[in-house]
C-alpha cells in the first residue's frame, strides 16, 4: 500500500523551476531516501508534502486521498533542516507546546514526553532552557518533539547533522524502531553512507528533476559498470586481454572493466590460461556516493537561474 504519491508536481519560483514535474510514490512502512545536491529542490518538495507550500500543478495523494493539509498535517512529523527551538523556553514546556500544536491533548502529550525523555535519558532536563543545551542535546530534543504525536509519516531533513557518533546511533536506532512499528520515514540527506545503511528505496533529484528512482540494490545494479576485482598471489605481468580493460592496479590485484559482449568467464579464462595464481574474483558495485556524483555531474551541479515564463 502506498502512503504517499506525488503526481507530476511542479513548483516554479520567480527565477527558477524549483520542482519541475516530479512523480514518485512511497510504500507504507518503508524508509525512503530523498537525495540530491544542495539546491536540488528537496526542501521545496518536502515543504509541499508538509503543506507549507502548495504545488503550482500536480497532485499529492496521502493515504489514498487527495492531500488535505489542514487534517493530514497531524499525521505528519517534520524535522526541517532549518530547525530550532525557543531559546528562552523551558524544555518540558516547549515539547508540550509543540505537541499541542500537533493536536495532542495536554495529558497525552505529557505522558508521551515523559516516555521519550526517559528513553533518551532526558528526565532531568525538564526545567532547563534550550540555551543551556549543547547542540547535540537540542538535536535530541528536536527529534523527540517531531515524533511525539506518533506520526504515520515522519520526514527527517538531515537528522544527523551536528550529532556525535553515539547520539547519531541513538537516533538511528529510534528511526529503525519507529519503522518496525509501521511508521513511514522520508529521509532527506546528501550523506550517502547513511542512505545505504538506512534506506529501502531512494530517489535522486537534481535541478528540480528526478534523475533516479528505485531500491538501493536495484540502483546499484543498474548503475554498475562491469567492474571486477581480481586478486592474485602476485600481479601478472601480462594483462592485456581482449575481453577487458584494466581500470587500475593494486597490490596483488587488478580492477578490470569487462568489455561489451564478454562475460566474467572470459576474464577468468584469460588469467587461468596464464596460471596467474587467482585467489579472488568479485564484482565491484558502485557506491551510492559514486552514483550520486556521476549522475549529478551529468547535469551541471550548480543550478543556473533561468527565466520562467
Amino acid at each position, binding site marked *: 500500500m502506498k502512503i504517499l504519491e506525488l503526481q507530476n508536481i511542479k513548483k516554479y519560483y*520567480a527565477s527558477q523551476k524549483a520542482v519541475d514535474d516530479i512523480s514518485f510514490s512511497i510504500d507504507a512502512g518503508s524508509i525512503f531516501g530523498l537525495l540530491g545536491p544542495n539546491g536540488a529542490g528537496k526542501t521545496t518538495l518536502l*515543504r509541499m508534502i*508538509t*503543506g*507549507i507550500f*502548495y504545488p503550482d500543478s500536480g497532485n499529492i495523494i496521502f493515504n489514498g486521498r487527495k492531500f488535505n493539509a489542514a487534517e493530514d*498535517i497531524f499525521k*505528519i512529523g*517534520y*524535522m*526541517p533542516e*532549518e*530547525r*530550532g*527551538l*525557543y*531559546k*528562552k*523556553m523551558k524544555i518540558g514546556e516547549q515539547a508540550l*507546546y*509543540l505537541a*499541542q*500544536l*500537533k493536536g495532542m491533548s495536554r495529558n497525552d502529550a505529557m505522558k508521551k514526553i515523559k516516555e521519550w525523555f526517559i528513553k533518551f535519558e532526558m528526565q532531568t532536563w525538564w526545567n532547563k532552557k534550550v540555551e543551556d543545551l549543547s547542540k547535540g542535546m537540542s538535536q535530541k530534543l*528536536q527529534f523527540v*518533539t517531531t515524533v511525539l504525536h506518533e506520526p504515520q509519516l515522519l520526514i527527517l531533513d538531515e537528522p544527523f547533522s551536528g550529532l556525535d557518533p553515539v547520539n547519531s546511533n541513538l537516533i538511528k536506532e529510534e528511526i529503525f524502531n519507529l519503522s518496525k512499528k509501521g511508521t513511514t520515514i522520508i529521509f532527506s540527506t546528501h550523506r550517502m553512507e547513511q542512505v545505504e545503511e538506512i534506506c529501502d528505496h531512494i530517489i535522486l533529484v537534481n535541478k528540480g528533476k528526478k534523475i533516479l528512482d528505485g531500491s538501493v540494490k536495484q540502483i546499484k545494479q543498474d548503475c554498475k559498470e562491469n567492474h571486477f576485482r581480481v586478486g592474485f598471489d602476485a600481479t601478472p605481468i601480462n594483462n592485456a586481454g581482449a575481453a577487458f580493460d584494466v581500470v587500475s592496479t593494486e597490490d596483488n590485484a587488478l580492477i578490470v572493466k569487462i568489455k561489451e559482449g564478454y562475460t566474467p568467464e572470459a576474464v577468468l579464462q584469460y588469467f587461468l590460461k596464464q596460471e596467474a595464481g587467482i585467489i579472488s574474483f568479485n564484482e565491484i558495485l558502485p557506491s551510492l556516493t559514486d552514483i550520486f556524483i556521476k549522475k549529478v555531474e551529468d547535469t551541471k551541479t550548480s543550478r543556473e537561474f533561468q527565466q520562467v515564463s
Partner: protein
Amino acid sequence: MNKIWIIIKREYLTRVRNKTFILSTILLPLFFVGFVAASTYFSMKSTDKHTIAVNDANGIFKNNFKNDNNITFEYPSDVDANNYKTKGYSALLEIPKNYGPDKDSITLTSDKQLGLGAEERIKDQINMSIKNKAFLEKNIDKKVLDSINDIDEESLYKFSPVIRKGDKIEHSNSGLAYGIGFGSGMLIYITLFIYGAAVMRGVMEEKMNRIAEVIISSVKPFQLMMGKIIGIAAVGLTQFIIWIILIIGLSTMAALFLPHDILQHAQTANSAMSSANTSMAMGFMSAKNSIAQANWALIIPCFLFYFIGGYLFYAALFAAVGSVVNEDPQEAQSLMLPITMPIVLSFIIMTTAAGKPDSPIAIWGSMIPFSSPIVMMARIPSGGVPLWQLAISMLSLVAGFILTTMLAGKIYRTGILLYGKKITFREMGKWIFRKS
C-alpha cells in the same frame, strides 16, 4: 481557532512571566507616583524662609512691603552687598534713588538662587507699593485703599464657562481636555512603538531561531502571526490595567502621607509660580477635583478601542517587517521606516489636535486610519467630536487593520521561510499581489 489559542497562551505566558515585564509593570507606576509626590513635596516644602534686607535710598518703600509665610522684609540701615550675609539676611534688595526703565535698576543680591516663586513675590510687592503710592498721591484715603487691597476677588464670584450646542450644555474645561487628550494620544503613540516592536522582535526571534518552519508545519503562518499579535495585545492590556490600578492606589496613598498644609498650599498655589515642578504638582492635586468633570464614559471605551485598533493596524505591519529581516538588525531599522514615519507624523498632528480639536488637520487626521488612533484620542476629551466623524473614524480603522493584516500576512508567509537574501520593497509588493 484552537491552535491560535495555544499560540496566544504561549505568547502571553512567556511574556508575563518574564522578569523585565514584572519589573517594568511594578516599577513604572512607583516611579511615576514617587516622582510627582516628591516634586510636589519639595517644590512646596523647600520654598525656604527668606529674610530680605531692603536698602531703599528714597525711603518710599519702607514698611510698605507685606511679609508672608516665606518672605520677611526688614529695613536695617547699615547693610550693603558685603555684609548682608553676616548680618543674617538671605538677600539684599537695593532700590536706587533714580530707578526707572532706562535709569538705574533695582537689584536683588543673593549668593544663591532664591527660586522663581520668591523673585516673583518680591516683584509683586514692588508693583503693589508703586501702585499704592500712586493712589495715595491722588489723595485716596489710606484706610480706603487698604480695605480695597484686602478684597479677595476669587472668593466673591464663581466662574463657569460652558459650551452650548443647540440644547446641549457642557461644562468646558479646556485645560483638562487638553491634558487628557494629549496624554491619551501620547500613550497610544508610545504603546504603538513598544508593542509593535515587541511583535517585530518576536517574529525575528522565531525566524532566526529557525523554529518558524517547525511551527509552520503544524499551523498556518497566518495563525502563527495572529497568535503572536493577539498574545502581545493581551500582554499590553494586562500591563495597562495593572498600571492604572497601581497609579490610582499609590497616588491615593501618597496623598494621605503628604502633610496637609502642603496639599493646601499646592491647591492655592499662586499662578505666578509657574515652574515645571509646581505645575505638575498642581496638576496632580487638581486632578482629583476636576477628574469627575471629564466625560470618562466616552473617553475610556474610546481609548480602549483606539488602542486596540491602532495596535492591530500597525502590529501586522511590524510582523511583516520582522519576517523579512535576516541576521542583520540594521536591516530592521531601514525596513521599519515606512511604518514609523506615519506614526511620528500622527504624533505631530496630535500635538496640534489636542489644542485645536476642530481644526481641519485634526479632523482629517482623526479619520484616516493610519493616524486616527493617535489623533482622535486627542480630540475626544474636548467633547466636540460629532458622532458621524467618530463613526467614520472607527469604521475606517477597522477596515484599515483588516487590510493591513491581510497584506502583512502575505508578506509574512513568504518572508518567514526565506533566509540569506536581502528583500526589497519591490519584492514585498510582488508577494502581496501574487495569487496564493
